[in-house]
């Protein structure tokens, strides 16, 4: 992304299209109405929206809740692929870079599935080709019969250097956890370098990415703490956030929970999420705090997109809002299926 164009025309074009798409997303009132519907009513409601073609297409292969979930995922993948098509030049590269987390997720699912001997059909059901690796490429990966051959098929892709470096260790330990962590660390590192490469709005987005890295590191510190993981945790932390890796290691070994949270709150970069950290002190489950943070991050991104209307922010805010629309519909359907109370489902919605 060295030759980033700073001309406004493509930004205006793409940002306008994103705003139109964003306006078509389901409003808060629809979610509140769906909270009082049954699963079949929700399916019918979804069928009357943007998801009709996917529901119709998959109706013969899936039914009930699985139909809803797979249709939502397919729609998300299709929508992201369309956005990749309409974004020109540097914006395209940046969007591609931002969506690479889906590539990591899909690649790891195939790798694990194949390693465990899961049938290709079953692995395919859980893939969401929303990134650069499209459905055809993922199908090709699914036809490979060994982990080594799947990795070899990735040669030339951005993930390949990390795969080449980490795969022997993963095969030796029979665990892809480290490989997965390294892929995500690589993702954030490349995303940060892409943001700094001159794309319009990159500098404001940089602060957002740093906040995300900080929260992920803090969240993972809490997860490690509740999982009683001791020792060196440096390899589990994402660099380039407000905390240095050594600082995170030092915080991780603090035994007292109160001192642990105090130490995190001292960081100036995390002032905006102080309230959430206080909730952690009150022993609120981490997954509930995660939803709060998602809401906070989305609101932050929305604020950035309004403040910088001709930048990458409106594109990213749409990508995120679309993702959460799918997540909300899925949460509604799954929550109804599991007979969770409406209030509880509502607390899991990002609206």
């Amino acid at each position, binding site marked *: 992304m060295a030759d980033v164009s700073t001309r406004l025309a493509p930004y205006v074009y793409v940002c306008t299209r994103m705003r139109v798409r964003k306006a078509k997303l389901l409003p808060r009132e629809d979610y509140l109405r769906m909270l009082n519907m049954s699963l079949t009513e929700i399916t019918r409601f979804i069928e009357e929206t943007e998801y009709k073609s996917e529901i119709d297409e998959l109706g013969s292969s899936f039914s009930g*809740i*699985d139909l809803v*979930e*797979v249709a939502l*995922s397919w729609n998300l993948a299709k929508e992201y692929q369309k956005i990749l098509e309409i974004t020109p030049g540097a914006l395209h590269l940046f969007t591609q870079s931002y969506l690479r987390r889906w590539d*990591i*997720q899909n690649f*790891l*699912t195939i790798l*694990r*599935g194949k*390693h*465990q001997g*899961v049938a290709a059909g079953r*692995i395919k*059901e*859980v893939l*969401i080709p929303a990134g650069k690796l499209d459905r055809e490429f993922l199908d090709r990966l699914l036809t490979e019969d060994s982990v080594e051959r799947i990795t070899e098929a990735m040669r030339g892709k951005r993930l390949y250097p990390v795969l080449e470096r980490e795969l022997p260790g993963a095969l030796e330990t*029979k*665990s*892809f*956890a*480290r*490989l*997965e*962590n390294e*892929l*995500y*660390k690589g993702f954030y590192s490349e995303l940060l370098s892409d943001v700094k490469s001159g794309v319009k709005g990159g500098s404001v987005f940089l602060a957002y990415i740093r906040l995300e890295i900080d929260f*992920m590191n803090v*969240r*993972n510190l*809490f*997860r*490690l703490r*509740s*999982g*009683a*993981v001791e020792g060196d945790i440096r390899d*589990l932390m*994402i660099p380039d956030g407000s905390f240095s890796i050594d600082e995170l290691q030092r915080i991780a070994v603090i035994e007292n929970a109160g001192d642990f949270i105090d130490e995190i709150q001292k960081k100036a970069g995390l002032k905006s999420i102080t309230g959430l950290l206080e909730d952690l002190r009150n022993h609120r*489950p*981490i*997954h509930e705090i*995660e*939803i709060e943070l998602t809401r906070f991050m989305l609101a932050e991104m929305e604020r950035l997109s309004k403040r910088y209307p001709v930048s990458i922010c409106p594109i990213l805010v749409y990508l995120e809002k679309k993702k959460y629309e799918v*997540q909300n519909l*899925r*949460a509604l359907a*799954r*929550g109804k*299926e*599991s*007979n*969770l109370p409406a209030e509880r*489902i509502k607390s*899991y919605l990002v609206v």
Partner: protein
Amino acid sequence: MALKDVKPTRSELIGLKRKIKLSERGYNILKMKRDGLILEFFKVLEEAKNSRGSLQERYNRAVEMIAIANTFEGAIGVKAAAMSVKETPEITLKQKNIMGVVVPEIESSRVRKGLRERGYGLLGTSAVIDETATAFEELVEEIIKAAEIETTMKRLLNEIEHTKRRVNALEFKVIPELTEASTFIKMRLDEMEREELFRLKKIKAKSQKAEA
């Protein structure tokens, strides 16, 4: 033992007396065993009650967590994370003896895993996956514990039933029949003795008459 099959002999009576003594000793031992087993059973019953309560609690928690995980991450996310786990828990079956009843002693390993051993990466998953995995690991642990207690309880119950049947058989069938047979032989022997005495008296009377 039908009385018609009983030979009214002195040696048979001695044999029967020996059998009665043995049966009574066996009866007392079995009664003590039955009472001991019942005591053990009540101890295990208490454990089983706690274990069932705990099992139900952990099952409810696991069901709740998987519902939350499916709601939060979607079945796709949960299935993708589940594919990371390849190792299955190992169970070692040993035996222990409670008053002659062989009951299993189940030891499990690799059920509870640390965050690093679960196989999924920390950066690509959320805390709800950890909480769900922990809930299910705890459930599996409780199932293994409950399996040991429930099997012990079932085997103790079988053994109590078995012992009770033997005690009852001895108390109401074997010992009364042996006592009856012994009484019959005693009476028969007495009868035979009286007959013999009478016969002797008769012979004596006849021989005295002939002499006179």
